[in-house]
């Protein structure tokens, strides 16, 4: 029954977080800071991983096709894999590690050093002040990172295909366009919005209720990453079933 306690406490924290900010100008400044922290500072790792993922998918697909399977399948597979699964799921998982642990340790440190108590005593809604900007920034910026990942992944696939001679550019371009459905992108971005919410809010939850000292902050950071990834994976299954079937 312990999990029910956590779900209840998580819901109550969200309800407390989604109250009107004390001052909109302060919220706006915090939001910009979080957009930079969650978004801009993650562009490098997202770009690096996406380029290598796209390139590897291209090489693996080329390795498996032959005979009656047309070469344009390489472009088709790279596009579908990046858009449907790799970018919208793996990028949030990676962000759960990078951003989630950062959020949990930042808020957890504030908890154990009584900074959150200081906010509460001043009359500031500490949950709203600390968590709302992070969640809004996550929901807003993670889809942009995922779109960037899709573009870079498919681009890298095309480049490696042409550079290695495994796929002429014309075939790759044709494969990229064949049977393209806009709904696939809508599905991917819908998932991404949900994952952005999960990775920021679950991490904030673990930080907000950290107790003890440095050791516990470290543990809460680890729990934040593990639970974010687990919940993202379960949500991925549920959303895919709901949206694609």
């Amino acid at each position: 029954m312990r999990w029910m306690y956590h779900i209840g406490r998580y819901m109550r924290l969200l309800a407390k977080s989604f109250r009107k900010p004390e001052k909109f100008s302060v919220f706006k400044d915090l939001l910009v800071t979080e957009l930079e922290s969650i978004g801009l500072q993650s562009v490098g790792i997202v770009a690096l991983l996406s380029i290598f993922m796209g390139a590897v998918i291209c090489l693996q697909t080329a390795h498996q096709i032959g005979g009656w399977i047309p070469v344009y399948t390489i472009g088709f597979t790279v596009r579908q894999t990046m858009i449907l699964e790799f970018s919208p799921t793996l990028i949030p998982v990676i962000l759960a590690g990078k951003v989630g642990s950062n959020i949990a340790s930042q808020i957890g440190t504030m908890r154990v050093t009584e900074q959150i108590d200081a906010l509460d005593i001043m009359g500031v809604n500490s949950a709203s002040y600390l968590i709302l900007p992070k969640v809004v920034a996550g929901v807003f910026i993670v889809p942009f990172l995922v779109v960037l990942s899709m573009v870079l992944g498919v681009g890298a696939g095309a480049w490696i295909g042409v550079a290695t001679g495994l796929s002429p550019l014309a075939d790759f371009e044709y494969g990229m366009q064949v049977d393209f459905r806009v709904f696939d992108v809508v599905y991917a971005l819908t998932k991404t919005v949900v994952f952005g919410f999960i990775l920021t809010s679950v991490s904030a939850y673990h930080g907000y209720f950290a107790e003890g000292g440095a050791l516990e902050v470290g543990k809460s950071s680890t729990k934040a990453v593990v639970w974010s990834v687990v919940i993202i994976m379960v949500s991925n299954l549920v959303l895919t079933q709901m949206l694609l079937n």
Partner: protein
Amino acid sequence: MIELQHLEKSFGDHHVLKDVSATFERGKVNFVIGRSGSGKSVMTKCTVGLIEPDQGRVFYDGRDFTSMSQKERKVIRQEIGMLFQGSALFDSMTVQENVEFPLRMFSDMSDAERRDRAAVCLERVELADASTRFPAECSGGMQKRVGIARAIAMNPKYLFCDEPNSGLDPQTAIVIDNLISDITAEYQITTVVVSHDMNSVMEASDTIHFVHQGSICWHGNREGLLEGGVKELEDFVFASDLMRKIRKTV
């Protein structure tokens, strides 16, 4: 004035506060003393609303804090300043930004007015030249003084200090004690200091409440403290050789 009436608090089977009633007077430094684990911090947290008491009431100048909604409490909270044991300064902000923070959240001051008010508060704690530093770049004593500057930024009616001298050398501790006394008299604040530092008690206290095993078993002033009369109080106050010598000379 702050009044506590019959506060009770338990954590599971552990009865931490037992029928605690006390009055903290305006314009005075009211000390709450007692051994570690006696319930002082829980009592303070119940008073400021960080912990909800199981029973009892807390009145701020006649206003029943315990029966208020969160929205109503917010008004009182803006009248409270608190100095934490570990200072609890926001480490991502400079000293100046820390002091400006409550003004930024709750006042309609312009940027220039906020800067001026923060400068006045920092001047009051003799830290005008440290405004651009981050808390990590300040010594323990400086952090406490920044904490005091932040606590008085909103002209509070009530000031709570949790172990204000912990981890400080005796000279710096006296500076902090004097600062708390001076500010209390200057702004006519109701100040509550939680401490087990007898030097501070003898230096800065106007009234003293002694907490033992979750109950206030004695209250009085410095002179009364040296007279003793209650065994638990005497065990606490005269635990050190220095205090026993002072008692003999008195």
